[in-house]
């Protein structure tokens, strides 16, 4: 991000300036809430798989896939939360936003597969 000294931009410029809104802190907590939501959703999805009468190869592949998607989600969020500790945090990289959305979409798609798979 093209940061640097910008006399025309209001707000705290140096990293040590006081930020009365605690914006990075609030954003970090928002990320934490989001990872908790993702974890709860993944747990429900896992419970759904456990309820199958005869778990087979399809169920195993789905479980591994959803575990990896959850891991990717949490890792991306963790990296962003680390970036938030900088005094003047950089903007959210659009790639991170897109990857998070892709993870969520893939998890929803796994849900559809769980629902319509044979033997359900």
């Amino acid at each position, binding site marked *: *991000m*093209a*940061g640097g000294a*910008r006399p*025309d*931009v*209001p*707000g705290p410029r140096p990293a040590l300036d006081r*930020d009365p*809104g605690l*914006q*990075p802190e*609030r*954003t970090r907590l*928002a*990320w934490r*809430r*989001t990872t908790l*939501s*993702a974890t*709860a*959703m993944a747990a*429900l*999805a896992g*419970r*759904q798989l456990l*309820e199958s009468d005869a778990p087979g190869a399809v169920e195993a592949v789905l479980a591994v896939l959803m575990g990896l998607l959850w891991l990717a989600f949490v890792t991306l969020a963790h990296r962003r939360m680390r970036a938030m500790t900088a005094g*003047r*945090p950089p*903007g*959210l990289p*659009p*790639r991170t*936003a*897109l990857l*998070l*959305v892709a993870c*969520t*979409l893939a*998890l*929803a*798609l796994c*849900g*559809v597969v769980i*629902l*319509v798979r044979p033997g359900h």
Partner: protein
Amino acid sequence: MILTDGLRSIGAAVRLWFSPARVREEGATPDYRFSLANERTFLAWLRTGLALVGGGFAVDQFLPRLHEGLRVTFTLVLLAGGALCTLRAVNHWVRCERAMRRGEDLPVSRFPTALALAVAVLAVAVVVLVLLGRTD
């Protein structure tokens, strides 16, 4: 006419997601606090999407005696709604970021109203089904 306009705007939006560097070429970098507020809004919408997907799983798991067709329909509607919410989250985030860089007004949207109405209809439907005893 409306359809082609709609398709064109969807195309433009998708192009914008995949070439986000273009957003950063425009205008001036806003105060980082505004960008962080936009990021939190994005996360709130993402959580809404996650909650809808989780709700879909919950309907399938916790209403086992609901008629099979109804249960699958509710679940699929909730999963699709969750997917739509997450797509909207990233779209709205990019549009807000661009508006802030250009110094324009933030985009307005009918999506929250539409989502609220859809959730209300779905909730009323489930309440009616439970009252009619169709779930046990």
